[in-house]
């Protein structure tokens, strides 16, 4: 690869790439989520079969496309025909169809509710209401192909920023765009940059936060895996704007593919001279180092993350001094989330005004969510701010699976809350969700049906946070432990009505007296469920009942005699030997022996085991 010494060199390389770029290609999602569904085997089969048939169609192994619940997903370009749940054995048929210019019916997407079948990706309801900006190139760019990225406008924003705009104009453009941090707090990115730029220190740093601590989300991982160049381009622009010469990408250790791709992408950019000294002949020097995080939720918090990069344990510091003044090794440091940075090249290219025209008054642009839970279409979705929760859950997500009733949607992970049906028409933006007692957060969105116990969900998050609290300050460390004890009591049917008030009081103290954001937002899952699902708490306490059938101490497994036809399967599978009955006769569960593992209900094909 040759080093690019000027903007003209870059444009020449782009033209070369464009002249080679194929119109017809197969894009196969190959991020972690797709691999878990067996995409690697499909990729191998594709390669093999293409060679056998002498078909000169390139396959792009890209990041996850988004429709993760239906992976492996492939899209045939230029038409945009989408095939899902592809198995290696389907590959010959797929290629046959492509070769003949036909469509392979059996792998097309069929809407689970309307039963309508779609040929083109763009028509599928899952994609229709999305607005793919940062995820826009996911399908056409191979993660490490600089040619692909250049063909799609890559690094034109960097060139524009460095040669046409200059630091001040970039910052102004980002301020105009109204871009707010996607890591959760929603701070104005342009202001953060402006502050860092105003510092006179000769040494400054920029850090990309890819810690992604929310235990139910994976947007940042997908971006780092699939479009590392986009994130890095945003980062180089940021560094140039604030005057930083060293950057760090902090990726959590559980993300090996993301780490690997970012590392490899950095090396490509170094070889091209897009990182290193005198980038594109501009005189600007900048390099990036990847740091693997140790896997602690609190390390996503800015001061803890900084400590962790410095090689210390990730404990937050109190923030009367901002990182933009004194961060890494006491130097001005800009910390931005992965998705925040991925937005930057688009803002530079298309302008702050354009960006600000998307979204709501206070929340501009799009947001990527990792949509999961009891809905039909799970995966990664990117929507314009201001879309309602209902549209995301029903139009994009396809609604609740199996005809069950909707109960709640959880956003913001451990820092957020659960919202009920009555709040579904709220627009998705930073301030509205916070007012409703939840939080937009970094992008986790879990939809829950009637079989989810809200007390258990609150307990789940508090347990997670008790384990993740760094323990530095008392309200968080002890307060959360206490909250967990109370929630344990309630789920075991030993709670009192006073406990509910105690939870609220504790929540108030923890959020007001904790040092960092972890503690400050930790009570949200409890407070929001108490606010919207109080009757469920009351049932646990007063009636000793868990209507969702989740809390073990409050439920009992029973066999419904009318439905039991004596198939004897549960008898064989019960690990405790708690079921008695002869083949073809009605079976009975011995409540003394039953450990409530639920296996009998899982294995019964006749719906004869009931939780009461």
């Amino acid at each position, binding site marked *: 690869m040759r080093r690019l010494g000027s903007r003209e060199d870059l444009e020449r390389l782009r033209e070369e790439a464009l002249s080679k770029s194929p119109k017809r290609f197969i894009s196969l999602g190959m991020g972690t989520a797709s691999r878990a569904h067996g995409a690697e085997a499909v990729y191998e089969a594709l390669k093999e079969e293409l060679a056998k048939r002498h078909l000169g169609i390139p396959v792009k192994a890209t990041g996850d496309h988004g429709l993760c*619940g*239906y992976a492996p997903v492939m899209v045939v370009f230029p038409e945009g025909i989408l095939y899902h749940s592809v198995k290696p054995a389907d590959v010959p048929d797929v290629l046959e169809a492509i070769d003949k210019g036909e469509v392979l019916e059996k792998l097309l997407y069929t809407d689970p509710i309307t039963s309508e079948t779609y040929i083109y990706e763009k028509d599928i309801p899952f994609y229709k209401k999305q607005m793919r900006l940062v995820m826009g190139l996911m399908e056409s760019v191979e993660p490490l192909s600089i040619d692909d990225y250049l063909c799609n406008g890559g690094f034109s924003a960097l060139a524009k920023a460095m040669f046409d705009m200059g630091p001040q104009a970039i910052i102004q453009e980002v301020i105009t765009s109204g871009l707010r941090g996607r890591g959760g707090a929603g701070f104005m990115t342009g202001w953060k940059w402006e502050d860092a730029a105003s510092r006179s220190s000769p040494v400054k740093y920029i850090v990309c936060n890819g810690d992604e601590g929310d235990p139910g989300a994976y947007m940042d991982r997908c971006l780092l895996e699939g479009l590392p160049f986009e994130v890095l381009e945003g980062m180089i622009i940021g560094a140039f704007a604030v005057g930083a010469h060293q950057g760090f990408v902090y990726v959590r250790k559980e993300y090996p593919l993301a780490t690997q791709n970012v590392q490899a992408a950095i090396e490509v950019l170094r070889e091209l001279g897009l990182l290193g000294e005198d980038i594109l002949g501009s005189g600007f020097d900048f390099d990036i180092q990847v740091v*693997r995080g140790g896997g602690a939720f609190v390390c996503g918090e800015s001061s803890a993350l900084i400590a962790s*990069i410095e090689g210390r*344990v990730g404990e937050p510091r109190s923030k009367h001094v901002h990182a933009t003044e004194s961060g890494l090794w006491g130097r001005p440091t800009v910390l931005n989330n992965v998705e925040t940075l991925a937005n930057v090249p688009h803002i530079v290219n298309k302008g702050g005004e354009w960006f600000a025209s998307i979204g709501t008054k206070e929340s501009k642009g799009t947001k990527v969510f990792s949509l*999961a839970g009891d809905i039909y279409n799970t995966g990664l979705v990117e929507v314009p701010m201001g879309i309602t929760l209902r549209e995301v859950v029903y139009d994009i997500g396809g609604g609740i699976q199996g005809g069950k009733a909707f109960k709640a949607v959880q956003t913001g992970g451990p820092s957020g809350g659960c919202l009920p049906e009555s709040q579904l028409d709220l627009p998705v933006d930073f301030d509205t969700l916070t007012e409703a007692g939840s939080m937009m957060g970094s992008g*986790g969105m879990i939809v*829950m049906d009637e079989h989810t116990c809200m007390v258990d969900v609150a307990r789940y998050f508090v347990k997670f946070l008790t384990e993740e609290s760094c323990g530095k300050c008392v309200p968080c460390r002890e307060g959360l432990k206490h909250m967990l004890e109370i929630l344990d009591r309630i789920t075991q049917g030993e709670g009192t009505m006073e406990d509910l008030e105690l939870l609220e009081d504790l929540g108030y103290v923890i959020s007001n007296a904790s040092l960092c954001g972890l503690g400050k937002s930790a009570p949200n899952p409890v407070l929001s469920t108490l606010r919207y699902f109080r009757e469920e708490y009351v049932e646990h306490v007063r009636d000793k009942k868990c209507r969702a059938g989740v809390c073990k101490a409050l439920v009992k497994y029973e066999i419904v005699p009318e439905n039991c036809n004596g198939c004897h399967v549960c008898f064989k599978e019960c*690990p405790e030997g708690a079921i008695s009955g002869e083949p073809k006769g009605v079976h009975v569960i011995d409540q003394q022996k039953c450990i409530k*593992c639920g296996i009998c209900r899982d294995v019964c094909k006749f719906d004869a085991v009931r939780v009461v």
Partner: protein
Amino acid sequence: MAQVVIEGVEENVREVMARYGNNPARMIEILQDLQDLYGYLPKEVLEEVSRQTEVPLTRVYHVATFFKAFTLKPRGKYTIQVCTGTACHVKGSYRVLERFEDLLGVRPGDTTDDLMFTLETVNCVGCCALGPVVIINGKYHGHVAPVQVESLIKEYRER
């Protein structure tokens, strides 16, 4: 517990340190690489790291015990990771985890006495649609029901 032989500590630590420019600030990565090498962080290794970096042993331990990614105990031949991410939890992964705990007789983070299995929990691995998800030595198993746990363990034990 089976005896594990720790070899070449001094050279290995030196080599890994060199990879990070002998910079103690990169302690977390140094420990990560050493853990990849030994499968866990043996006492001897931590002592050697402390000696070579001149970082007090208590600080090395502080880092090694703070982060979830580190383990101070030897690991089993198979690492079983049960996803306890939010979506998997809602789909009942805790029941699957309990079953593993019962059958293996260990808690998450621990290894069976015969050094066959290490049980762990992980956060969302990005295939929530497959939940509950269990990953065994990198291989994904989707829609795992408690009833399948016994045969899964058996399958790996007999390999």
